[in-house]
């Protein structure tokens, strides 16, 4: 059930998450200390157990491609929109430099062009569209490219009638892109509204940490919401809440278990049985769709009204009909000034 992927393929380097949790880093040496139970763990053994502590079940963080590798059937993952990359629409600069510079550094450090990896795969033989956060890319903050890649994945899921699986870990909206980032919340949820109207399921997996604009948009607009054990999930961050309210946070505040108890998520999904859980869920939806099709062979599915033609390689040939809003006639084929 658990795929000892790091060991078996050696393809993905164990990468230290850039999240300030020094305890979580998996160093090059052979032993790593579990931040929860303090047990010294043999790195390879930890990797074989999907980076779940064999003693206390602490779930170490994973990179986007590690997650995909863990879940997708061998060789079935085809990435979408790999080449779409961020710009700096605001000319943003803070005390430590410009956003444009930060993008270069982050890309080099993380090996990714953006914080979201999307594509299609099968899981347990079931087709699925995937959108997976990479926390090492600017804390998987949600900016224009994150939103655009996500929405393209949602639209492809809708057009092809295949379930959507999102895996989130994010600090929230990307401040460097200002209101462009905030609007990705509306954009992604609007795309999910259409996916829902087409009767295509969205399964959302929340992992540590999941905050802000992601928790308050696509990641909680789902037919089934799963969370990894112990993951911290919330809208406002714990430090902000403590500073503003001057109150001590309750025990277990914002953990997945806390959210389950408060009715916000469907299920806590252990990583070591996650493929089984997802396969069962996908089988339920697939069986239901097949049964509907058997009862009424006519197509149930309505294609999206804004047609996008996308190839596997992420080359976009989008056709958005001219908008009827007065004075506007914009399409993706003719990018507006702030799209390069």
């Amino acid at each position, binding site marked *: 059930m658990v795929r000892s992927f790091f060991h078996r393929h050696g393809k993905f380097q164990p990468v230290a998450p850039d999240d300030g949790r020094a305890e979580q880093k998996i160093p090059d040496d052979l032993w790593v200390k579990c931040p929860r139970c303090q047990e010294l763990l043999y790195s390879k053994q930890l990797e074989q157990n999907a980076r779940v502590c064999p003693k206390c079940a602490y779930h170490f963080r994973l990179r986007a491609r590690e997650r995909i590798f863990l879940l997708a059937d061998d060789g079935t993952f085809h990435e979408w929109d790999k080449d779409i990359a*961020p710009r700096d629409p605001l000319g943003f600069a803070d005390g430590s430099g410009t956003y444009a510079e930060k993008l270069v550094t982050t890309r080099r450090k993380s090996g990714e062009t953006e914080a979201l990896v999307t594509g299609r795969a099968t899981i347990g033989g079931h087709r699925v569209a995937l959108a997976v956060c990479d926390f090492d890319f600017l804390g998987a903050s949600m900016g224009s490219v994150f939103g655009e890649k996500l929405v393209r994945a949602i639209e492809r899921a809708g057009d092809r009638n295949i379930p959507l699986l999102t895996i989130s870990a994010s600090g929230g909206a990307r401040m460097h892109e*200002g209101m462009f980032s905030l609007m990705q919340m509306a954009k992604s949820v609007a795309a999910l509204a259409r996916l829902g109207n087409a009767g295509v399921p969205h399964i959302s997996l929340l992992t540590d940490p999941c905050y802000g604009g992601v928790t308050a*948009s696509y990641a909680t607009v789902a037919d089934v919401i799963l969370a990894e054990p112990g993951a911290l999930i919330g809208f406002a961050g714990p430090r902000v809440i403590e500073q503003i309210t001057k109150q001590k946070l309750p025990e277990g505040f914002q953990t997945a278990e806390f959210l389950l108890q408060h009715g916000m998520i469907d299920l806590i999904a252990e990583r070591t049985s996650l493929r089984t859980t997802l396969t069962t869920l996908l089988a339920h939806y697939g069986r239901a769709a097949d049964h509907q099709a058997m009862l009424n062979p006519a197509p149930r599915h309505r294609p999206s009204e804004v047609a996008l033609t996308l190839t596997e390689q992420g080359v976009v040939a989008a056709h958005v009909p001219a908008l009827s809003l007065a004075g506007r006639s914009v399409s993706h084929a003719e990018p507006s000034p702030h799209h390069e």
Partner: protein
Amino acid sequence: MSDQVDDLVSAHSTALIGVNGGPPAVTGTAPRPTAWDRVKLARHPERPRTLDYIERLTTGFIEMHGDRSAGDDQALIGGMAQFGDRTVMVLGHQKGRATNENIARNFGMPRPEGYRKAERLMTHAAKFGLPVVSFIDTPGADPGISSEERGQGVAIAESLLTMADLPVPLVAVVIGEGGSGGALAIGVADRLLMLENAIYAVASPEGCAAILWKDAAKAPEAAETMRITAPELLRFEIIDAVIPEPTPAHLAAEATIKAVGAAIAHHLDALESAYLRGDPRGGDRLRADRYAKFRRIGSWRDGPF
């Protein structure tokens, strides 16, 4: 602070409006106020609030309280009212003025029950074909413990979902502070308007400065680079029109409210003519075009990095 703000007024541009992507026409030669000036204007305690707009622009307002499951949020209010010859559903953040009122209104920061009430009222509007008019004026969603316990994130997300899919016209106006997801939750509109001195931001300038500069005092710099003013957001096509404030709203409440009313009426008329007149299924076209409007927001390069 009030005196300081008033001093800005003389240095204030006097007419600035652009609709639907047209360039804003700027008249007058006085220097533009800075982004931080506008932050202060947007937060000015004497600036007209949602209830001021409702009182002056509508009749027969029936406030509809409660989310039918947990509570009644006084920071996000709503109800039916007569606006011109229409019945509309009005929603808005409500800040207080005096300390007591500010506490009762939670400084305009909605809790989950506020977003769930908004969702309920939007669904009610859809059922009876009422256009939705929303007034945005919040520092952001409440960041308290109990709001987290009751699902602040889920509540905002579900309000976004309901709004995105609504078959009635939605016009939103940022009248003061447009604070992040807490503002957006009632802002997924067919037409998003902003008063000239309103701001709309992904995070508060102070919060952004604290995180990226490690120093909240750098808020003025953050405000500048974040591009949170109405003219900038119009240029980015994130908003659809700027409503001018020849005199800042806190010094010209009557005129400002009137201008906002006229803008809302104009856009409701336009939406109704474009979609609903003579087309019983026009709501579907409206939703499709609303999707297209949000669908194209973003800035990216399509080639390799």
